Each structure stands twice: as structure tokens, then as C-alpha cells.
């Protein structure tokens, strides 16, 4: 459809819309209030609950830290605790940052730029997260064994580690290659948007 034809159709539609009055005062105010109520609970729904679960797990591990009596078990436990605290905090911070985009004061271009930048940052964090997840999968196994069975997996079930670690390594390789491809595409497109928008200010 060419622009001139679009203008004609658009104008016809606008005329028809002018004659329809569907909203009432009550409905309009209801929309703002209902929306406000729903805004409050957003964080608590997914990321907030996830973060609380992680913090409780970290605290419980912290209390059992004396149990980890060898240096490698201690390193595994410390990594797991750090992961359970830092990763949820990073996720919550990213969400907060995303929400800080000022839809009220910004121009459309500023919103596009802010979004593209935050998207790039978020994807970088996500990529780091993928690697951390796999390290966690490996190091959490000795931690789980120690906490629930009070066993040092390297002494009692070391065979389990022999197949568990290589399988995890293969997963890491395949998944990260796939993730990197996706990451590259999205960041390239975000960079393209930023570059293009940069040209519009000259």
C-alpha cells in the first residue's frame, strides 16, 4: 500500500473512530487503579520469590560451612553460596534498571536507545550466567553430597564425578556455542539500532 492510499484509509478510519465514544469516566479511572494495584506485585511474582529461595539456601549453607572440612569442599561451598547471593541480586538489579527507562520524559528515540543499551548489558550478564550455571552444576554436586549424605564425593563416589563432569562439559560447549550465536545476533542488531539512531542527531 502506497503512502497516499494509506493516508486516505487512515483518514476514513479516524473519522469513524471520532464518532465512537466507548470509554466512560468510571472505566478510565478503573484502568489506572487496576493497573496500579497490579504493578505492586510484579517483583514478588517470579524473580522475587526465586531470590528469596536462593537467599534461604545460601544462609542454610553458610550455617553448615564448618561441615566442609577439605579445601575443595570448602571452595565448592563458597562458590555455591556466592552464586546463590550474587546471581539473584544481579537479576533484580537488571529488572530495576529496565524499569528506570523514563517513558514519561524521554523522546521515542531516547527510549529506543535506552532499551538497546540495556538489552546489550542484559545479554552480556545472561551469557556470563550461562557459564556460571555450568560451574555451579559441577561444584554443587559435592556440596549436595556433603549436606544431605555427609559424604565427600571425591572419596566415596568419585566415579560419579568422572562421568558427570565430562557430560556437563559437553553440555556447556554445545549450549554456549548456540547461546553465543544468538547473543551475537541480538547484540549486533542492538548495535545497529544504536548506530543508526546516532546518525539521526546529525
Amino acid at each position: 500500500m502506497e503512502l497516499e492510499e494509506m493516508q486516505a484509509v487512515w483518514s476514513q478510519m479516524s473519522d469513524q473512530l471520532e464518532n465512537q465514544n466507548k470509554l466512560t469516566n468510571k472505566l478510565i479511572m478503573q484502568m489506572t487503579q487496576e493497573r496500579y494495584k497490579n504493578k505492586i506485585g510484579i517483583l514478588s511474582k517470579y524473580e522475587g520469590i526465586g531470590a528469596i529461595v536462593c537467599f534461604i539456601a545460601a544462609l542454610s549453607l553458610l550455617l553448615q560451612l564448618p561441615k566442609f572440612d577439605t579445601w575443595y569442599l570448602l571452595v565448592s561451598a563458597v562458590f555455591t553460596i556466592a552464586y546463590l547471593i550474587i546471581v539473584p541480586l544481579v537479576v533484580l538489579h537488571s529488572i530495576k534498571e529496565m524499569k528506570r527507562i523514563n517513558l514519561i520524559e524521554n523522546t521515542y528515540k531516547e527510549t529506543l536507545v535506552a532499551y538497546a543499551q540495556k538489552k546489550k548489558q542484559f545479554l552480556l550478564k545472561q551469557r556470563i550466567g550461562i557459564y556460571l550455571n555450568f560451574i555451579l552444576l559441577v561444584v554443587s554436586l559435592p556440596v549436595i553430597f556433603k549436606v544431605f549424605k555427609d559424604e565427600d564425593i571425591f572419596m566415596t563416589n568419585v566415579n560419579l564425578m568422572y562421568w558427570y563432569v565430562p557430560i556437563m562439559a559437553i553440555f556447556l560447549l554445545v549450549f554456549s556455542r548456540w547461546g553465543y550465536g544468538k547473543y551475537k545476533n541480538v547484540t549486533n542488531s542492538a548495535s545497529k539500532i544504536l548506530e543508526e539512531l546516532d546518525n539521526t542527531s546529525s
Partner: protein
Amino acid sequence: MTKEETFTRIIKQNEGVIYKITRLYTRNEEDQKDLYQEIVYQLWKAFDGFRGDAKVSTWMYRIALNTALFHLKKDKRSGYSVSLDTVVLKQKEYDPLLDERLNVLYDSIRNLEDLDKAIVFLFLEEKKYEEIAVITGITSSNVSTRMARIKEKLKTQIIKK
């Protein structure tokens, strides 16, 4: 006139504009209703800061387009569950021929890049290049250059079809 009365009057005067933006930035009725509520909510939130030194339409288009853009891009999982039935959309009363042409029109605009989408929408709303520049944040000369490119893109879309 109270704040609520002034606000509802402005929304009622511009409900068609909000409707058009929501239809342009969504692909199904549920998302459209959700975006409609979000725009009304953002406008209400911004209403205290609206001093009246800008045109109501400029203020409204800017916030509505920003909200639509952000709503479209953000992760759906961080969305909210709202009773969507409270929003009544307008399109039911079109005649079928117009509706068919409108579908083609909206699809053509949706296929454009985000910035071009907003520019062509404001152009169809009969906004001057200066006002489009204020809302989108690019220069008037850039609006003019981009409009020329958009015309070409729309022609190419027809040829491809």
C-alpha cells in the same frame, strides 16, 4: 474541574489515538487491551507533571508511543495479569471492506523499523515534521529524509508482494 475530571476528558477526547497506537503495536486483541490499559496508566502517572506548556497531543503521543515501544519489547513474563474485559475496543463497528484495507495498512506499517513506524504513524495523524521531530527526538530534516526512505520502502513492499 478536578484532576480526575480533566484527565478523563483528555482521555475521552483522544481515545481514538490510543486505540490506533495499540492496534499498530500489537498483533492480537488481548495484547491490544493490555497495552491500552498500560498507556492510560502511564498517562495518569505523568499527568501531574504535565504543565500545559506543551500541546496535549504532543505530550500524549510521546508517552503513548514510548509505552507501546517498551511494552512491545519487554519480556512478557514481567507483565501483569489484569482483567482485560474492562477495556472496550472500537474496531467492531468498521465495515468489512474498510477493515480489510486497514489490515493491509497496519501490516505495512508494522513491517517498518521501530523509528520509521512511529514517524509514519505521526505523519498519517497529520502531524507536521516539526512536531514529529519533538515527539521522536530526531531533527526535522531527518524526519523529512526518513519519510522519503519510508515511501521507497512501502513501494518495495508492494513489488515484493
